[in-house]
């Protein structure tokens, strides 16, 4: 594949946002899905709930079909549900589930991602596996290529389990895929998932002994996204490190050290879909703490591909604020200026309608937030 600097998707900024535009945000929590509606980036109210009392790991809307999806984990196992009306009835998908001879069971469904072709979606689960749907999410099939990867027996889980949480697609090249697994690193495919190879060059696992780092494969990727307008550019939040790839995940460059971040540990990450040079992270104190450093809630923005990071704090708590923001709890709305939203385990959701320059409290007192995605 020729990795040239070309547009691969409709430029999102063609959709200009008006200041008084209404928005809908899907917030997954430990106590169900909250559908928030209100002014873009500002205070919202709960338009409805679904899956009350049950852990909703992730929820999203596929903009192609308008269909909503939710990954739900309850006593009876993890399920995917879908609906065309998030305030109406939800239908359970068939799967994702492993074949009976796989010798394993799906524990959690971490992410659902639209695919390239109409009706195609991807789902990442724990234990680390990729599922594909070709019928708008009604049924899901295991990607056998990655499941049968010979090195799988040596893969190690992170603290949250051995989870596949990040899936990157290339709209101009449907054969190409990249996935991120905690803690089995980055995996790349160029044949629609039939075969996979590692894409970890340049990643340094500081949590391992120095002499073990060069050959390390226990790589704890926390989040990974591709820049929609530049096919070869990916950004990654690692366990302790922030990285950028300029070659579609083959090699990675450290953009988290000595560049203005208070910590290069974290989980949440957003890429500006209008600008491949721009990304956002919400650093957390590393090791066992995992809260916003110094009691301040700060979103850090780069506009120069990670050479420098600037704190965006206006409207965010700057004192005695020790929040934990989980990996799927930070999202954008794709518009211009970019709308950004993130939710915390303390039940607050914050939003910005101006690319992070100013922030508002969208809502407070929800259950612990596991995921945030914009549906309009």
């Amino acid at each position: 594949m020729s990795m040239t600097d070309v547009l691969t998707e409709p430029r999102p900024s063609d959709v200009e946002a008006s200041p008084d535009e209404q928005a809908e945000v899907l917030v997954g929590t430990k106590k169900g899905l909250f559908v928030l509606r209100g002014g873009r980036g500002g205070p919202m109210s709960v338009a409805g709930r679904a899956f009350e009392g049950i852990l909703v790991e992730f929820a999203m809307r596929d903009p192609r079909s308008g269909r909503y999806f939710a990954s739900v984990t309850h006593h009876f196992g993890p399920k995917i549900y879908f609906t065309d009306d998030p305030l109406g009835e939800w239908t359970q998908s068939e799967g994702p589930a492993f074949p009976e001879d796989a010798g394993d069971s799906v524990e959690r469904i971490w992410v659902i991602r639209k695919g390239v072709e109409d009706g195609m979606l991807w789902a990442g689960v724990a234990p680390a596996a990729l599922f594909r749907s070709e019928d708008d999410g009604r049924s899901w099939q295991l990607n056998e290529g990655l499941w049968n990867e010979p090195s799988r027996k040596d893969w190690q889980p992170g603290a949250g389990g051995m989870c596949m949480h990040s899936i990157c697609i290339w709209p101009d090249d449907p054969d190409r895929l990249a996935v991120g697994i905690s803690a089995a690193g980055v995996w790349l495919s160029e044949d629609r998932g039939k075969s996979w190879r590692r894409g970890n060059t340049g990643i340094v696992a500081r949590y391992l002994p120095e002499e073990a780092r060069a050959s390390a494969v226990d790589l704890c990727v926390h989040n990974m996204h591709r820049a929609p307008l530049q096919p070869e550019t990916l950004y990654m939040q690692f366990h302790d490190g922030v990285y950028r790839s300029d070659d579609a995940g083959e090699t990675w460059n450290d953009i988290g050290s000595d560049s203005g971040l208070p910590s290069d540990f974290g989980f949440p990450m957003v890429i500006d879909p209008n600008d491949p040079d721009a990304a956002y992270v919400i650093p957390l104190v590393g090791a066992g703490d995992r809260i916003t450093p110094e009691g301040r809630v700060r979103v850090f923005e780069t506009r120069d591909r990670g050479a420098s990071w600037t704190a965006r704090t206006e409207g965010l708590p700057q004192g005695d604020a020790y929040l934990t923001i989980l990996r799927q709890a930070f999202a954008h709305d794709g518009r211009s200026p970019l709308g950004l939203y993130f939710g915390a385990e303390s039940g607050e959701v914050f939003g910005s309608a101006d690319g992070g320059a100013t922030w508002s409290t969208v809502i407070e007192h929800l259950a612990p937030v596991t995921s945030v995605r914009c549906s309009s």
Partner: protein
Amino acid sequence: VAVVKLRSPLRELAGSQELSVEGTTVEEVIRRLEAGYPQLSGWVLDEEGRIREHVGVFLNDERAGLEEAVGDRDRIHILPAISGGAASCGANAQEAARIEGGAPCP
């Protein structure tokens, strides 16, 4: 024929809180229940054919395993396990692990 008693949300899925199902073991009864009510597939047994960690199956008044023999008119209760409270208890232990805090990673 055993009498299978279901609690929410299984009874909503099956459309009944009590069903008569044939089988000589708990596993056979559950398999036939799934065959008769495909919407229950994957809810009680996982892909490996085990009773899900947070599902309780009782044969009459005793917790039962899949191999337990079932007689005529025996009652099989299928219900969500009680797992609230301590972090070491069932679902909460799993939830504690899912919150990325805590143990070093990996």
